[in-house]
């Protein structure tokens, strides 16, 4: 028990559990299964973007990808347009969304590297350009996803969405990348001390490039999946992932100072955030208050968790 409590990710799961219990206490158990299914379905998307964001944030202070919402929005439109309601084009559409996300990630890295501007500003300015591309490209886009695709993103096995299984496998993969691949170790090394990493022979720029590209690609995939799940693309489909992708990383026990990442915590934090929204909805809280509470909880969690001294 003690070793379990010392794991940084346990708190996010405990938080999720508390919120969940509060919700079913309020509904007296009615619709518990539905709540869980819905929570898992939505958490999946946050986990995927959150994992990308985690790799970026782990690179160290100042590294963050603020272009995810625009990236997701554009990829959702790209996927729908390429699939064009045709089941045969699903794979191509997914690849196209992946490519769109990858291109955004590469563009972000180039801005950071060539203009030597902090990633926050680079990704923020690129997000505005992406947003315009999306508005112009997706104008009047009313394409429904192919029926087979929409079904796939909504299939459940004993109440558990199939995407959740896939995403758990993805998380296991991400954890292996982080701890057992040279790339993952390099990310952790750069996040702790970029200069020491360079002097220890880590190819710093290649790793940073891969990381921003990876984060962009994951954003692209998420866009495609969201379009399937919500049965259509839209410009603002990714808006909530600006904050939530960062929030799940921080709540999940990854250090904002860099160099320390935590994959399981992202699941706990994503479930916590989704269930928190469910709870507030169940309680009948107004949209305004919901925003306020979400914001306050995030600030509170960062205050409690983020107290460690940044290295620089």
């Amino acid at each position, binding site marked *: 028990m003690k070793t379990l409590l010392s794991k940084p990710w346990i708190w996010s799961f405990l938080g999720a559990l508390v919120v969940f219990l509060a919700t079913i206490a309020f509904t007296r158990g009615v619709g518990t299964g539905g709540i869980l299914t819905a929570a898992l379905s939505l958490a999946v998307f946050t986990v995927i973007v959150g994992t990308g964001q985690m790799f970026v944030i782990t690179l160290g202070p100042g590294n963050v990808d603020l272009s995810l919402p625009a990236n997701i929005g554009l990829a959702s439109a790209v996927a729908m347009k390429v699939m064009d309601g045709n089941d045969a084009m699903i794979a191509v559409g997914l690849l196209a969304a992946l490519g769109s996300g990858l291109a955004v990630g590469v563009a972000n890295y180039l801005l950071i590297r060539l203009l030597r501007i902090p990633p926050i500003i680079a990704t*923020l300015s690129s997000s505005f350009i992406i947003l315009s591309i999306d*508005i112009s490209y997706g104008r009047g886009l009313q394409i429904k996803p192919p029926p087979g695709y929409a079904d796939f993103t909504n299939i459940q096995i004993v109440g558990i969405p199939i995407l959740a299984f896939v995403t758990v496998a993805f998380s296991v993969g991400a954890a292996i990348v982080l701890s057992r691949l040279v790339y993952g170790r390099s990310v952790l090394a750069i996040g702790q001390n970029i200069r020491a990493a360079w002097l220890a022979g880590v190819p710093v720029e290649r790793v940073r490039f891969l990381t921003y590209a990876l984060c962009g690609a994951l954003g692209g995939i998420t866009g495609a999946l969201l379009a399937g799940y919500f049965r259509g693309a839209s410009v603002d489909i990714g808006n909530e992932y600006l904050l939530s992708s960062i*929030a799940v990383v921080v709540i999940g026990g990854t250090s904002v100072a860099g160099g320390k990442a935590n994959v399981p915590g992202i699941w706990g934090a994503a479930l916590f955030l989704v269930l928190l929204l469910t709870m507030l909805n169940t309680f009948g809280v107004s949209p*305004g208050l919901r925003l306020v509470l979400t914001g*306050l909880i995030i600030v509170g969690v960062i205050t409690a968790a983020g107290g460690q001294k940044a290295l620089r």
Partner: protein
Amino acid sequence: MSLGSAQAVGARPINWARLMRALLPALSLGIVVVAIASLNQRAISYLGFTLMLNLAIPIALATLAQMFVITINELDLSIGPFVGFVGCVTATWLHDSPLLGITVLIAAIGVYVALGALIHLRNLPSIVVTLGMSFVWQGLAILILPTPGGKAPEWLLALMGFKPPFIPMPIVAAIVIALVVHFGLMRTSYGAVLRGAGGNGQAIGRAGWSLLRTKMVMFGLTGLFGVLSGLALIGTTTSGDANIGNGYTLLSIAGVILGGGEFVGGRVSPVGAVIGALTMAMAASPLLTFMHVPPDWQVAANGAILIIVLAARVLISRKEANA
């Protein structure tokens, strides 16, 4: 620091790259004005500037707000929603029961001071904290004013609608604001300490100054100028909207950078920031409209302007490093 810094030794002639860099903000504003003039002669008139710059004052104030936190190496990603929140308070409570409105606005500045203290004491990343706060301000704005509406107080409308002789109001206001902040931050003795805290916090601490206090003062000033920006905005638009300030986060950061400020090191320029804000205000809509940029692409144009200016600066500072 273990890295031996490259330092050119010797007498310093006029550093053209540095001069260029200092003039870059004014230069980019000039380019925008010339571009507008060539596209539409009539825009260059008392009425034209009044119309084109009608939103420049709130943008300039928000930019200065952002500049204060950037001076101490922090960033405020919540300034846009905060301006929106102030706008909603102004259009409702400040109009209906001024005492309540004033209390709320002062309390909001207090929240900023407290955030500064929190960020310093717990050593938190300001990006994440202010990102969280952006949701709080947005939520509060929606609670106060669920649908667009409300009404600006009369005195505010009168103030913002004032028409001075010869020079349009926004230009007069921009000059006054820039000079006041320039004096406060660049010319007072405590201003030097505040900027020093951004340049070398450790040295300021060793000289016996409280770094906690500098953070609280700077965040407080950000709150104050955020409030002023919201007031000016509502005085211009006459009614409130919870989403009215959302674009100001990017605009304010862009304005500071365009104005020659740097993200770290306490190097900022209030006059430059105001010029940067005016540039953004004119480039954001009037220029793009005259150039017949379709509305879809106006957001992209803003991002592109930012990237181009940053690229220009990188080129110039490379020259500077080689000089």
